[in-house]
């Protein structure tokens, strides 16, 4: 059985030869460590003396960005293949560099939806980016930004299609690149405005909130089509709907405002003969039934530090959802011992892999995850994940 058959078999709730292992590598710090490469750090370029006009003009040309970005994600997939993963997620994104003197680095990334991503340095000197806020805090600003980027929204799905097709071509015989349409409708709706601002709309200007959600649903369906065009049998969608203690909104409110949108996304994926796995960080135990109802085929991550217990989730949803996860990335895969990693893998497999429907993975990705721990996870997955499982 090859990596693809193993992965697809598991998502279809059948037992493969062993539990598949999936990577969530997106950080160049991780992939470069695995591949023994020196990361090309944008901070070095930004710290150089002198005007940055040429650098900005070059990086902000979509063709240059797209080519550079494919190479970065190729390194991620290369590293994932080297670690022995069967699959790794692959997310298309388009960012543009802008000068911003209020930040330490002096530059930030903007995305087409109106988010600002701050550039900073982790403790090992790697450049990292984090969502820092939005450019569309009011109705007028939101409408102006969507109008300003109208032409970009037209071509974004084409860029995404080229990206996913290129990765399929480069890696299709070595590892399964699981195309991920991200960010989803919820995040695209609130992040460009800010959470407090968007939340206020839900309560006080529901019509405008629905206008935003409808706009992003339409765009997201086109993005998902582009991912599917690369020939995927399994795709990822995602929105962080949870925080550490529970859903970010009342579940009834998520259903009221976003349920129809998610049903449309799931229906589109199914029409195209594929399966939809949904990513959400945080504690989403209270949303699992909604996920099944909306037509999602699986979920990915299930953060253990957000009270997501993979065995309990399996008990709660049975085989209505495939489960991908869920090794802790706050301690275990950063500083955990080999015994701790092995034990967590054994526990996850024992709790969720009976009858298929389970893929082993880290609960997320960040630059401080240690590749040695990832290697231990893979080795333990191969040791404890052979079917039939030993009880």
């Amino acid at each position: 059985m090859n990596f693809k058959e193993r992965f697809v078999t598991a998502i279809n709730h059948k037992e493969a030869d062993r539990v598949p292992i999936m990577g969530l590598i997106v950080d160049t710090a991780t992939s470069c460590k695995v591949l023994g490469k020196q990361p090309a750090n944008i901070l070095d370029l930004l710290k150089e003396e002198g005007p940055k006009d040429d650098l900005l003009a070059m990086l902000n040309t979509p063709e240059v960005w797209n080519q550079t970005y494919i190479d970065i994600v190729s390194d991620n997939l290369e590293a994932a293949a080297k670690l022995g993963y069967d699959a790794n997620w692959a997310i298309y994104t388009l960012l543009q560099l802008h000068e911003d003197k209020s930040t330490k680095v002096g530059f930030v990334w903007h995305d087409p939806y109106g988010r600002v991503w701050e550039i900073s340095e982790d403790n090992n000197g790697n450049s990292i980016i984090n969502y820092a806020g939005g450019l569309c805090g009011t109705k007028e600003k939101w409408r102006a930004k969507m109008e300003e980027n109208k032409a970009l929204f037209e071509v974004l799905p084409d860029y995404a299609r080229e990206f996913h097709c290129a990765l399929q071509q480069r890696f299709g015989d070595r590892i399964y690149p699981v195309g991920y349409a991200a960010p989803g409708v919820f995040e695209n709706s609130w992040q460009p405005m800010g959470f407090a601002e968007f939340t206020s709309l839900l309560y006080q200007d529901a019509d405008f909130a629905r206008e935003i959600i409808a706009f992003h649903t339409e765009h997201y369906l086109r993005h998902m089509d582009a991912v599917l065009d690369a020939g995927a049998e399994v795709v990822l969608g995602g929105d962080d709907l949870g925080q550490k203690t529970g859903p970010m909104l009342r579940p009834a409110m998520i259903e009221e405002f976003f349920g129809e949108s998610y049903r449309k996304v799931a229906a589109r994926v199914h029409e195209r003969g594929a399966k939809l796995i949904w990513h959400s960080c945080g504690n989403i135990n209270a949303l699992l039934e909604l996920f099944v109802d909306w037509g999602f085929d699986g979920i990915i991550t299930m953060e253990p530090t957000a009270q997501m217990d993979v065995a309990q989730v399996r008990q709660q949803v049975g085989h209505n959802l495939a489960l991908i996860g869920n090794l802790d990335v706050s301690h275990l895969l950063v500083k955990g011992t080999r015994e701790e990693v092995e034990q967590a893998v054994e526990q996850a497999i024992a709790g969720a892999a009976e009858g298929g429907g389970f893929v082993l993975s880290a609960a997320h990705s960040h630059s401080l995850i240690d590749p040695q721990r990832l290697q231990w996870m893979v080795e333990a997955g191969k040791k404890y994940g052979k079917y039939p499982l030993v009880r």
Partner: protein
Amino acid sequence: MSNLDQLIEELKRDEALGEVELRLAGGESVTAILDDCRAGMARVGELFQEGEYFLADLILSAEIFKSAAALLEPHINPEQQQKALGKVLLATMRGDIHDLGKNILATLFRVHSFEVHDLGVNVEPEDLVQEVKDFQPDFVGISALITTSFESAKEATDQLEKEGLRDGIKILVGGAVTTPEVKTYLGADFQTHDATAGVAYCVNAMGGC
């Protein structure tokens, strides 16, 4: 329950602010109005703890409270100022620029009559240590959404220890990536993912209820 309590509990922003204005115009004391706002916020906190309310509800109630407080502030005279229950210093440390949770926490502390000094995001350890000397807080709250700020938080807590400033304060760590292991690593006194639990810990420590 007064009408204002209930309006805040039900997250009816415009009606709640209208009620504040009405009562101010009627000559009611600022303290009484503020007490009702606090009672409404306390109820929202309880509903969050009980799992009835979610993050969005907490944030919206905090926004309502801030707007109400802004309406009341010009009418507060120095004699009406209540004595602060305690002093809280808040920061998101270097390496992290997220402030949603910290901002909720700041509002909830103010609701509970704490004096709050918020240093903002991406704070250098030496700046936090200096502010502990200047502001002399009872509590230091360190917020983290990503793991990259742990090392700078550790530098700050080590420095507080080294300079003999640690004994007089309680350190709280909170935010998505914090765990009991992070609490131990930083030598903190309390760790939580829940802003209301953080405030309850401080209220309790100050002998409040």
